[in-house]
Each structure stands twice: as structure tokens, then as C-alpha cells.
């Protein structure tokens, strides 16, 4: 489904990814772990198509197509979703307005009918309840004054609403207390389906107690240094990243 080959990426003239290979089959959840600066977030941004991330070599094939040739909004329409580590604030735009605009834009691009206001409200309420999101929160401007937990839950809410085929979660657990991690993880698990692939980027093993991955990849110095089953995450919890720190 997603096939990354020999990916090299520069950010502000510095090479961050140096020949990354990764295959993520449909229906699987893979965790990306690794020390700070190993290129985890860079991988997330490159997949979403952020401009400042310059691909100097390699390919990314997504559903048989060249992902790197697509615009960010086309990638979103084709089902690529990034749950941001630091979701942006947009003053004056009610969260509900933003959600509705996004959902209907993506539905339109996928050739589906736009949702009517009552249908949309029903849809949002159902998903919000699952994530224990207070409907009052959705009236507030997008992410403005949201707590860390509210921001992350809002990301997962968007993921649920946009029904993506590839979910990239960039350190969704960072800054969350244990209860919030559990709520977010439950939301993510509810979205695990046989036709959806997920890339869960995290620094800590903690999140993987709740979202149990099919595979774990450890990134070091811009490459996948080691891959294994869920037990690899537990091993790292014991030994730390010392052996993977850049020499």
C-alpha cells in the first residue's frame, strides 16, 4: 500500500533522511520509534507534502501512485492524514466550521456527496462522544486556547471524520497524561480496519501499550536501523536508545 524506497530528504540544507526504506501493507499498524533527531517527524511531514522538506532521492509509492508528485491537498483527498504533533491555531474560525469545510472538501474530491448540516452534526456528535469531546469545545475557534489533550483529541476527531486510508500520527502522545493517552488510543483503535494503514510515530513505548502495532521500526540517523514485532518496543523500554544514538 505504502512503499518508501531509499528516501533522502534535506531540511534547510541538512540531510535528515538518508536512505529510508519502509513497506506498510494495507490493514497494518506500524510504529516508528527512535531517538530525538533521528528523522521521525521529518518522515511524517514528507509524507504529507510540506514544502520545506526537499526530497533529494528515493521514491514513495502510495496506492500504486507517485505520492511525491502530488499536492498536499491532493494527498489529503487520496486518504493521507497527518495527526500533527503541534496542531495549528486558527483564530476566529469555529472548530465546527473548520471540520465541516474539511470533510465536505475531501468528500467532494473523492466524488462523494457533501453532507447536509443535520447529517454532519449527527456524524460529528457520534465521533466526538467516542473521544469524550465536549460539544462546547467545537464551538471555540480551532485549537485556540485548547489544552494539550484537547488539541490531540481534536486531531483524532478529524481523523475519524475524514476517513483516511493512511493515518500518520506524529507523537500524538507527547504532552498527554495517562488518562488522555488512553482516550486518544481508544479513538485510534476504533479506526483500525482491514483497509486502513497506520504509521504511529512515538518516542515512548507507553502509547504502544494501548495501540499495539503489527511491526515496530527504529529510526536512527535517517534510516530504519532495526525492525521487529511489538516486543521490540518493550526491549527499547528496557535498554533505551543508547545503541541507536548517532555516532
Amino acid at each position: 500500500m505504502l512503499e518508501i524506497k531509499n528516501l533522502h530528504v534535506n531540511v534547510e540544507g541538512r540531510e535528515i533522511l538518508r536512505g529510508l526504506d519502509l513497506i506498510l501493507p494495507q490493514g497494518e499498524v506500524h510504529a516508528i520509534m527512535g531517538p530525538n533527531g533521528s528523522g521521525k517527524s521529518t518522515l511524517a511531514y514528507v509524507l504529507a507534502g510540506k514544502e520545506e522538506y526537499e526530497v533529494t532521492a528515493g521514491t514513495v509509492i502510495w496506492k500504486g501512485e507517485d505520492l511525491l508528485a502530488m499536492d498536499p491537498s491532493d494527498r489529503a483527498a487520496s486518504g493521507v492524514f497527518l495527526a500533527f504533533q503541534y496542531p495549528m491555531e486558527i483564530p476566529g474560525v469555529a472548530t465546527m466550521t473548520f471540520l465541516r469545510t474539511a470533510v465536505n472538501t475531501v468528500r467532494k474530491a473523492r466524488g462523494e456527496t457533501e453532507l447536509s448540516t443535520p447529517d454532519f452534526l449527527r456524524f460529528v456528535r457520534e465521533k466526538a462522544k467516542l473521544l469524550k469531546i465536549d460539544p462546547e469545545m467545537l464551538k471555540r475557534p480551532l485549537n485556540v486556547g485548547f489544552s494539550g489533550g484537547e488539541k490531540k483529541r481534536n486531531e483524532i476527531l478529524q481523523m475519524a471524520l475524514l476517513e483516511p486510508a493512511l493515518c500518520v500520527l506524529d507523537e500524538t502522545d507527547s504532552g498527554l497524561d495517562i488518562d488522555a493517552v488512553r482516550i486518544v488510543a481508544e479513538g485510534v483503535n476504533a479506526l483500525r480496519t482491514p483497509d486502513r494503514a497506520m504509521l504511529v510515530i512515538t518516542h515512548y513505548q507507553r502509547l504502544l501499550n494501548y495501540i499495539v502495532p503489527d511491526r515496530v521500526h527504529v529510526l536512527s540517523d535517517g534510516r530504519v536501523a532495526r525492525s521487529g514485532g511489538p516486543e521490540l518496543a518493550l526491549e527499547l523500554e528496557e535498554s533505551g536508545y543508547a545503541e541507536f544514538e548517532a555516532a
Partner: protein
Amino acid sequence: MPAVQETIERVRRIDVDQYKYGFVTDIESDKAPKGLSEDIVRFISAKKTEPEWMLTWRLEAYRRWLTMREPTWARVDYPKINYQDYYYYSAPKRKALASLDEVDPEILATYAKLGIPLREQEALAGVVRPEGERRVAVDAVFDSVSVATTFQAELKKAGVIFMPISEALRQHPDLVKKYLGTVVPTSDNFFATLNSAVFSDGSFVYVPPGVRCPMELSTYFRINEKNTGQFERTLIIADKGSYVSYLEGCTAPMRDENQLHAAVVELVALDDAEIKYSTVQNWYPGDAAGKGGVYNFVTKRGDCRGPRSKISWTQVETGSAITWKYPSCILRGDGSRGEFYSIAISNGHQQVDSGTKMVHLGRDTSSRIISKGIAAGHSNNTYRGLVSAHRKASNARNFTNCDSLLIGDKCGAHTVPYIEAKNASATFEHEATTSKISDDQLFYCLQRGLSAEEAVALIVNGFVRDVLQQLPMEFMAETQKLIGISLEGSVG
């Protein structure tokens, strides 16, 4: 609605050909030679069969104008205007088009984006159906006439006078004479004085004591919007305890080719009266290279003459090559209140110098200014405002908030606030921010499937939300779309 149905029936009985003929005659007869002189002023006054005092008033203004100099203090730059090179009197003389196929496709695309019905599109673009197809055009006329007639009946019942000012000069000369030029005197400024000499027409509104105008005058205007010409003069009087809401302009793009516009709007609010005046302006801003476009030099002022009166200006400025406009409030009555809510968007090579004056004269007067300037492309956007408290204005209060948003790195936003307090008990607050749409905000929206233009429109609509909420309900949705359209091409 039975009332509307009844009107439609009544209008159906009118001889349509006669109606149409009258309209054509008007167009053909309303012309004056190029240039400006006392003779032209006399010509205009005669055309309108104005009373003698009106001609004298115009001539005094003209003589005064000859001694005045064009102001140069605004942050706008344009080639010197040759005032002898303009027509000072000509009725709307658009080329008659046979169908929408002849209209600039760019304009049609904009209409479609705004969701304007086809009939209305034809009317706005000036399509005249040929002989054989007259039925269609007639129907379109019916739609407007019937609704307009219904409105007129309702206004009359309430005692509200709403008519062209030229008509008011004939039917209600005493009212016009009592108030005309009392807010913006003929000697006020270069452009207002020019307007006083040569104004062609405009609206006159009088709301009698204690009457709440039964409808937003915008509703009426929306249907009757016509090419109102270069030198509009509007006078609105809200008598004691009355209320009126008025909206000028139209969200559909009127490709007005008149280059020089110098309008004057005067508002008078007597004791406990309230006037809400909203403007949506989207005249031709010039082409991508900055050529052409309307020069908009407007003087708008409201006089809160009576105690506890209130005047509120709301403006959405997206068009014109140059905007020079400062809708102001004279807070004369004790306890009176003035408000100014503004959205000014500039793109391409547009230059906007706009703001307000809040002049506190009476005791316990208060004012509020919320200005949102958005600059994109190569444009320059200046907020210029004055808040002053005179010696007797004890306990005057003002709150000002000026926010500027920049899109791209070739535009400019400027804020020039003047604050003068001659009374020690005045409380004036001023807040200002300048921000830029960040690449990260844009990327966040793109990742959720929005296009760059949709993202900018969404972020800008959020930025101007406080002001949008001041607009009459039925215009909010269209104005939101208009904001998106005026910022097209501002990113990527």
C-alpha cells in the same frame, strides 16, 4: 405571501412597453458635455428641475472648490487628475448586451461563485433581451418591480420617506433644505465640495419620530441596485426615537468604468435615534498590472445630534484601485454612541487609506472602532483614525482595535492613529496587532484537503469575524464568499 402575489398581479396589468420606453428616454437625454464650469453646474441643476436655492448652494460650492487644493496627506499614489477631462453628468450608459454570452466570462464566473440567480445576473450585467425574447426580460422586470412595490407600500404605511434625493428635492424641499450640508458642509474638503457642486443623485431617507423602519433598507436596495454614477449624495435622517438600517452596495461585482468617484453621505440621528449604515464596496480594482480601476474619494459622516443617539458604520471594502474614506461620527448629543466596524481588503496594486474619526463633543459619549485590514499582493493598506475629546466631553470613552493581516511579502500594512484628549476624564484605549498568515497554518489546512485559496479565505474570514457579524444577516454569507474571491491569486 399574499401581499407579494397581489403586487405581481397588479404589476402584470401595467403596460410593460411604456415602462421600458420611459427608461430608454431617460438614458438618451441625460448627458452633459465634458469638463466642469458654472454652466455645467447650472445644467445639472436644471436637468433635475431643482429649486433656485439648490442651484445657489451648488454654485457656492463650485466657487469654493476652485480655491481649494486636492489633499495629498493620504498614503496613496496616483497620477494627477485632470478634472476637466471628466463627464460630470451622464446617466448609466452601458452598452446593451443581448445575452449573458456577451458578458466577460470572468464576471460570470464570479456571479456563479457568489451563487447569484441567473435573472439577477442578467440584470446586473445589463443584458437587454431582443424583441422576440422580450417575455424573459419582462419576467425579470416583474420580479424586481413587484417586490419593490410591496416594499414601498410598507414603507409608506410606516411614514418612512425613501426616494432618490433629486425626487426629495421636489417633494420634500423643506426637509432636504433643513439637513443637507449640515453634517458635511459644502466647504468641508476638496472632494466633498466637488460633490456638493455636481452631485447627480443618491438616496434620501427620513424616518419619523418613534418609527422603527419596518425593513432593512438593504433588502430593497439589493433588488434595485443600479449604476448610481460618480457623484452620489446620500442624506439619512432618523428623527427622535427612530431606527433605520441601510445597506449600500451590492456583493455582485459592478464593473463600473467611471474612474473618479466622490460621494458624500450625511447621517443625522436626533434624540434617542439609531442609524446603522453598512457598505459593501467591490468596484473594479484595476487589472493585474495595476492599470485602470476606480478612484474612490468618499466623505461619510454621521452626526449624533440628539442625546443618547447612536450611529454605527460597517464597511467591507474590497474593490477600487484607490480608496480614500473615513466614515466618521460627531458625538454631539450627551450619552451618544458611535461605532465603526471595517474590513478593508487590498490585493494586486490596490491602495487603501481608510479609517474613521470619532469626535466626542457631548458628555458621557462613547465610541468603538474595530478595524481589520488585510493586505495581499503588492497592495498597501493604511488605517488612519482620529479619536478626540473636546473640553466639555467629560467621561468620553473610546475603544479602538486595529488588526492587520499580511499575505505574502510584497504588501504593506500601516496604522496611523491620532488621539487627542482635551478633557482629563476621557478614557481612550487603543489596541493594534499585525500578523501574517503563517506557512504552518496554510499547510495545516492543505493537509485537511483545502486548496490554498480556500485556506486563505477561511483564515481571513476568521480574522474578520467580529466585523462580519455586524452585517445584516442576508449579506454575511455572500460577503464571506466575496472575501475569498477578492483574495484569489494572493498565494502560491
